């Protein structure tokens, strides 16, 4: 049997769409939603409920529906969509859900993107109020964005067959939209839900661009787009949702909101059933009843909770043979799956119930203005006792509300509000009024007035559902209040009411009402729960947008990167940088490659790409004074042409970074930072300059990427450098350790620094990044006769660890002082002040049992300790708690030492040198000997080659 009307509805009856639901094949038409197409086949039952497994149907026609959750299975698996908002397309396969869907196991092939948009006036909602507001603002010349969640403008007009200005309302809507779309500076976004409203006019909206096309969605076109809208003024014309009344067994399929049934009729040409009982507290359901009756639905009875039915509407009903019973309510329903009947009783229980057979129950408990975005914008809400709903309770300077979102129910009044606030918003954005927009005049037979506020009909509390999606009942609410909860926020969390996909659009207000009744308080005194984004569900894929795959996090590369790739380097992520980790030869793993790279470097010559080191140019008359404050050691005494190693501490005296300081000129230095801290240290310097020492004549400029930096390391490095820098005297006397020279390397202007992070004779060659690859290749060629070996970060780590040089972030963790690292020599005793100095006098800093950097040599020289291992004192673990002495910070096999070794932070480490300690590794306790941190070339004999 079909429930499709012979005519009417905004559907294309000439085109048939085939779809599958719960394994059954059905047909529908373009213009249908999945819900309307199912209802056209008499299918009400969509899925089961999440906790109780009760059958559930379709309650509403739009995004406020609490129940019709489905899983799309084709074209692409997608969970938790509402049948009422899925536009039907050919080939759709879906099934109903019981509260939980399933994420697809395979990656979503669709494209999702984002776009920024700016406007003077943003209008949310393209119903009568929003349309008039948008057109008013547009005519003033303002940049306007109009967003609406439906696939066509019209709002509430889409669900009625009313005439506006003596013609079908759709024509009036089409005219307004046409003018908007043809006005320069106006953007109309359909299928776009404003789901989040934030400070300073920032609004997020989700546009569903190709979802409705199903299999026909064009490739390469973003399926959904997150609009990041920044607006000066906002008009919220978000409408109102009809609210049900709670009664026993109010959750059966076939029980739906009266206005939604009317929408299914007029928008989709679908009847909700054959025989309906209407239960209302206000006038609006009468219009639904009359329209449905005229379309062939047998309206068995209108049950009006008010003592008196509205005279004119009652007369109209009588003329159609519809019985109206005032002062009565639905007290319960019957049916195994779908509703088969309702039990009716007087509002004040006195006479026995009567039972009326029906397959449909249409409910109206009044209207809730949609205040979610207004509340998100921090607008205060006020309880309107006449409406029985929270309404916007204050005026905001940049957010205005129009239409039924204010609680206004009359179309003409809504449109007038739209014109007023549209004009105010444009004026507030600086635009003088344009041509006045004529207000539409409706022929609606339903005079707008609010009715009786009724939250629930007393009955079986355990079967009286407040939040159908969460299976939360009146009994749950009363349990919460009975347990002493009084705040709606607490009760929401206790009962989970309002926490499902629908965020309590139909249940929240009722829950508040029942709580107030139970507590005997006035709703005026209750604080509504806070509305939070998103207004409707937004998929993570849409939020991620294009920020995935290679665009997820920028990969920073150096100028020499293509060479590393071409030569088979494996890479390590250091911050956002890709740094060569090691360069395996065929058949080599990490350990063999690194042993080879280490050996080649210590015995002949190696080189690496050090371009990622942070570099900051420091200029100004007070540059030396400034660096004296930043570093623990003295920098102002450094002579031009010289280099000094320096340590930086935070105000707490803990090491935050280290690097070298090059004195370039009298008033100019170049400092280096660790790769990962380059930006942080520049910010740190700027912070001190801008907030504490603005009087200092110093400027800092990042030059990290201006330079390519190549450390050339090993006893043969001098020979290689001499070959490529013929004008440079590379002798130990002419080019001393910790000095620099400007010269020409491989035909390119270069700054060569003689510094070493390995203990070997080493040079650091700096050229502009454009020349990086050319100079690198020239060095490779010049070093060929010495077997020059490119090495990566792993070898760098081993070489420096053999020398006991700490790496910031590996040996340090924001609790380590320079003294802990054995670097008291780098802490000036002469300087009157520097950042961190004061903290060195703290008792905590002077404890003798601080964790200090030492070397560890496993007694078995082949045992490699896992980094991060704990260190204990005894060869057998005592009962917990076990005293932990510290942990292993670095651990490597060493070619130079012919054994494994480690660095560690150990309590009283410096005093323990020579002691045997133990490292738990899996089930064993590995004995280790504590040594000084410098394990290789303690005399520093190799530094000069």
């Amino acid at each position: 049997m079909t429930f499709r009307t012979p005519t009417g509805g905004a559907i294309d009856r000439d085109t048939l769409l085939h779809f599958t639901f719960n394994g059954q094949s059905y047909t529908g038409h373009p213009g249908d939603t999945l819900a309307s197409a199912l209802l056209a086949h008499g299918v009400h039952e969509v899925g089961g409920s999440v906790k109780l497994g009760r059958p559930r149907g379709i309650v509403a026609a739009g995004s406020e529906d609490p129940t019709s959750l489905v899983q799309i299975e084709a074209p692409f698996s997608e969970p938790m969509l509402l049948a009422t908002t899925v536009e039907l397309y050919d080939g759709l396969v879906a099934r109903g859900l019981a509260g939980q869907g399933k994420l697809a196991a395979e990656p979503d092939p669709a494209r999702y993107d984002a776009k920024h948009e700016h406007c003077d006036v943003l209008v949310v909602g393209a119903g009568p109020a929003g349309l008039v507001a948008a057109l008013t603002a547009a005519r003033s010349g303002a940049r306007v964005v109009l967003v609406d969640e439906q696939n066509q403008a019209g709002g509430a007009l889409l669900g009625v067959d009313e005439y506006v200005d003596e013609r079908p309302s759709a024509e009036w809507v089409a005219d307004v939209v046409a003018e908007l779309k043809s006005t320069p500076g106006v953007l109309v976004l359909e299928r776009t839900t404003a789901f989040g409203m934030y400070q300073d006019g920032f609004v997020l909206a989700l546009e569903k661009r190709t979802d409705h096309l199903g299999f026909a969605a064009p490739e390469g076109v973003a399926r959904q787009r997150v609009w990041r809208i920044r607006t000066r003024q906002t008009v919220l014309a978000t409408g109102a949702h009809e609210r049900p009344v709670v009664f026993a067994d109010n959750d059966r399929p076939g029980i739906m909101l009266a206005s939604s049934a009317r929408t299914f009729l007029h928008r989709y040409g679908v009847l909700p059933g054959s025989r309906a009982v209407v239960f209302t507290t206000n006038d609006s359901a009468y219009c639904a009843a009359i329209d449905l009756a005229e379309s062939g639905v047998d309206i068995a009875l209108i049950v009006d909770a008010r003592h008196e039915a509205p005279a004119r509407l009652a007369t109209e009903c009588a003329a159609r043979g519809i019985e109206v019973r005032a002062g009565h309510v639905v007290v319960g329903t019957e049916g195994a799956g779908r509703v088969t009947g309702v039990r009716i009783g007087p509002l004040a229980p006195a006479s026995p119930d009567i039972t009326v057979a029906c397959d449909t129950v249409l409910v109206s408990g009044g209207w809730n203005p949609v205040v979610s975005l207004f509340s998100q914008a921090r607008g205060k809400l006020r309880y309107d006792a006449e409406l029985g709903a929270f309404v916007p309770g204050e005026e905001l300077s940049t957010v205005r509300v129009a239409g039924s979102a204010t609680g206004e129910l009359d179309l003409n009044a809504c449109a007038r509000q739209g014109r007023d606030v549209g004009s105010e918003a444009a004026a507030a954005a600086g635009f003088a009024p344009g041509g006045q927009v004529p207000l539409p005049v409706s022929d609606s037979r339903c005079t707008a007035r609010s009715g009786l506020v009724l939250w629930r009909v007393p009955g079986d509390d355990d079967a009286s559902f407040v939040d159908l999606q969460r299976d939360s009942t009146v009994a749950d609410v009363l349990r919460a209040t009975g347990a002493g909860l009084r705040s709606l926020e607490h009760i929401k969390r206790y009962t989970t009411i309002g926490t499902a996909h629908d965020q309590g659009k139909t249940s929240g207000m009722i829950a508040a009402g029942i709580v107030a009744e139970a507590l005997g308080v006035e709703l005026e005194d209750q604080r509504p729960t806070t509305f939070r984004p998103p207004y409707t569900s937004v998929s993570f894929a849409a939020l991620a947008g294009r920020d995935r795959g290679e665009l997820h996090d920028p990969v920073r590369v150096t100028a020499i990167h293509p060479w590393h790739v071409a030569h088979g380097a494996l890479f390590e992520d250091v911050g956002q940088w890709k740094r060569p980790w090691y360069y395996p030869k065929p058949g080599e793993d990490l350990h063999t490659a690194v042993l080879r790279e280490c050996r080649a470097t210590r015995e002949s010559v190696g080189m690496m790409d050090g371009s990622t080191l942070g570099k900051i140019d420091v200029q100004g008359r007070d540059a030396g004074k400034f660096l004296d404050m930043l570093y623990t050691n003295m920098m102002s005494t450094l002579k031009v042409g010289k280099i000094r190693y320096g340590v930086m501490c935070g105000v707490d005296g803990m090491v935050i970074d280290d690097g070298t300081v090059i004195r370039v000129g009298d008033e100019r230095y170049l400092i280096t930072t660790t790769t990962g801290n380059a930006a942080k240290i520049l910010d740190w310097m700027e912070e001190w300059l801008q907030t504490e020492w603005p009087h200092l004549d110093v400027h800092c400029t990042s030059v990290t990427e201006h330079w390519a930096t190549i450390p050339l390391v090993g006893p043969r490095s001098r020979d290689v450098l001499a070959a490529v820098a013929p004008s440079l005297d590379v002798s130990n006397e002419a080019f001393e350790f910790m000095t620099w020279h400007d010269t020409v390397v491989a035909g390119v202007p270069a700054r060569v620094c003689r510094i070493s992070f390995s203990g070997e004779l080493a040079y650091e060659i700096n050229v502009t990044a454009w020349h990086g690859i050319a100079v690198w290749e020239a060095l490779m060629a010049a070093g060929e006769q010495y077997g020059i070996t490119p090495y990566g970060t792993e070898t760098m780590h081993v070489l420096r660890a053999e020398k006991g040089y700490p790496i910031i972030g590996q040996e340090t963790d924001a609790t380590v002082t320079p003294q802990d690292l054995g670097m008291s020599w780098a802490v000036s005793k002469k300087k009157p002040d520097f950042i961190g100095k004061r903290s060195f006098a703290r008792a905590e800093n002077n404890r003798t049992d601080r964790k200090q950097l030492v070397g560890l040599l496993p007694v078995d020289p082949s045992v490699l300790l896992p980094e991060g291992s704990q260190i204990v004192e005894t060869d057998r673990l005592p009962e917990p708690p076990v005293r932990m002495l510290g942990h292993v910070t670095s651990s490597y096999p060493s070619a130079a030492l012919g054994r494994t070794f480690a660095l560690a932070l150990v309590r009283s480490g410096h005093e323990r040198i020579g002691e045997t300690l133990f490292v738990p590794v899996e089930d064993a306790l590995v004995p280790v000997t504590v040594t000084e941190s410098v394990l290789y070339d303690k005399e520093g004999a190799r530094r000069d080659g």
Partner: protein
Amino acid sequence: MTASPLAAWRDRLAALAPVLDAAEQPFRSQLTVRVSDPDAIAAMGSALGVQFPSAACTFTSGSGRFGDVEVLWLGPDEFLVVAAPDLQITIEEVLRGALGTVRGSVVDTSAQRTTVVLEGPKVRDVLAHGCSVDLHPASAPGGTCVQTLLARTGIILQVNGDDRVTVLVRSSFAEYLAAWLCDACSEYLAVA
């Protein structure tokens, strides 16, 4: 002998036509200038033949002894002087001379960033997918210059005209920027 950060992307950027004419302009001379003294700023402008921008978020351009020169406002006391390749050393000297003993700094940052010029009727649309700055001609007319984010990389964005924008990006982020641009254009290319 020299390699620019986006040399390997030339063909992929060229393939963005007709949506965007996109090309790297490598090796330009760039100097970061920090100065707030008005006389020094004027002297530097005179030395270059183009006055420094006085309004925030703008750039100036002109021609002088160094040919076409642009001066980009980067902050209340920070500017970027941009000129043709291979002029950085002489321009640095000239600017230092104009600065004299006044508080300020001049740093050669030529290789710190590379430049991508984007032109086409969709240029503002494409950038709006990743740039939160209002690029509407009324808000960002020719002569606008802002430091902002494009997707996840910092950029300097110059508006040269209704359909033409210049983007300066840190060299290490250049490939990310190019990849992002290619991706952002893909829908426009698919539709076109």
